[in-house]
């Protein structure tokens, strides 16, 4: 990382701490903000967050590793999360899964070379009456079929 980028990240984290408050309870909102912007929380970001909140960096890492939506390793710019819980499975998730893998060219659990997509499974999204369902970044898409799922992916930048 360039020094300039590092400084920017530090500044950003300090601003977030100001916004949410300089306490431990602000850790999650700060991590979520960094995750959304950079798709992961880098070592440097972890150290800076620890410094600003006055906790050990290992504490920060411990929290990141606990939550499925927080990542220490870089991910694709768009994270696709397909529901694999039983109602979606019964509604045809397997066909959607295969179609997405063919279309995007990587398997679930992987990231594309151009870092555009990471494919993941997730547990029930609360859309069980409208399955199969998937989440792309912050949006949820329901009643998928193989063609519809691929069409949606083709509109993602």
């Amino acid at each position: 990382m360039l020094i300039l980028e590092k400084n920017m990240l530090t500044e950003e984290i300090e601003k977030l701490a100001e916004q949410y408050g300089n306490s431990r309870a602000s850790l999650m909102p700060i991590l979520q903000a960094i995750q959304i912007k950079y798709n992961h929380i880098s070592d440097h970001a972890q150290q800076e967050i620890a410094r600003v909140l006055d906790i050990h960096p290992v504490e920060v890492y411990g929290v990141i590793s606990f939550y499925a939506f927080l990542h220490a390793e870089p991910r694709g710019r768009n994270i696709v999360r397909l529901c694999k819980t039983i109602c979606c499975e019964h509604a045809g998730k397997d066909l959607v899964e295969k179609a997405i893998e063919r279309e995007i060219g990587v398997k679930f659990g992987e990231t594309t070379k151009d870092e555009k997509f990471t494919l993941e499974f997730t547990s029930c999204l609360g859309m069980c009456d409208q399955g199969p369902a998937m989440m792309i970044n912050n949006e949820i898409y329901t009643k998928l079929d193989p063609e519809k799922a691929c069409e949606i992916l083709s509109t993602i930048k």
Partner: protein
Amino acid sequence: MLTVENRPKRDGIILFSDYKAGSGIRRSVEMGRENVLFELRESKLKGRGGAGFSTATKWMLTAAASGEIKYIVCNADEGEPGTFKDKVLLTEYPDLVFDGMVVAGFTIGAKKGLVYLRGEYVYMLKSLERYLDRMRTYNLLGKNILGKEGFDFDIEIRLGAGAYVCGEETALIESLEGHRGEPRNRPPYPVNTGYMGCPTVVNNVETLASVPNILIKGGAWFAKHGTDKSTGSKLFSISGDCKKPGVYELPWGITIDEVLKIVEAENTKAVQVGGASGSCIPKKCFDRKLAYEDAATGGSIMIFNESRNMLNVLKNFMEFFVEESCGQCTPCRVGNVKLLEGIEMIENNEYTFRYINQLKDLCKTMQLASKCGLGQSSPNSFLSILENFKEEIFFKNGNGVYHG
């Protein structure tokens, strides 16, 4: 006047009935705290999040707990597979949910309410924030609410980050405090030692949403609905093999058969009541009642027809628990993995009945020795599916594969 945008037409006796935003709060101010607690007790409202604890008692304990600062937390983590009714309340009936929170704040003496919204529901965050802003404009939040001197209360929404166990109230509090979402030992209970060590009420979305109508129409009116032990109505999230899946408000005590008729389910083989941590009910028991005293549920009803492979259903649930166990205690961390391995042995025809019986004993150990409800209830599906679908799983074609 404060209204909710785009409320679709739904039918129900309590939650899905007409309600004027803010009226529950106004009523609570007119009545005073003691009378709010009195009506709540009359209503016999029990928690809708699963455990079914008396709401009046929980509020009373927190109101009586010593401490200047108190909190009300709305549990909107809704992670139980097959549950999506809190989503409907939050998106279509935010007035009921937030008015319920304000009433709770007034009654227990909290100045702050927190909503713990599951990360998967981030898409509704903006519209919820907008609604809260409008409540502020109408002085339903903020300082001296509705002109009542000293009635200050506001609500903040916090996002979860994809961990089912954070729905457990002590894990949820850990998460709110910025820690890993690992359940705490109880006691102490949140009513005494909750968020930031302060007395805290944690209530499910639906529990809170039930409160405004109880105040307006009376506890006795509420208690007239449902059964003696399960008063009022319940939102059921119904999914799976039926023509009309969705969220229904139905009185407690309705039988599974009746529900299946309403949603037009055909050739039903099994109904999973209470999500992955609930139990699987076979056809011969469809006359059972949905109620705290019979087939209890936080609202998840998943329907499986004759074509479904029940071992596969069970495997899906156990994979869920292996992934979602926080790993803090051994019975749950190791137990769920062992149960899943057992299922794979059955699948591959590599099991012995002696070993399966040992796994059933392990289930009992997990139910007794796990630290939180996740490990205590994950064996439910294992036990009920292996018992109720024994024939399909062990006897068909001489192996575990069902050719249906």
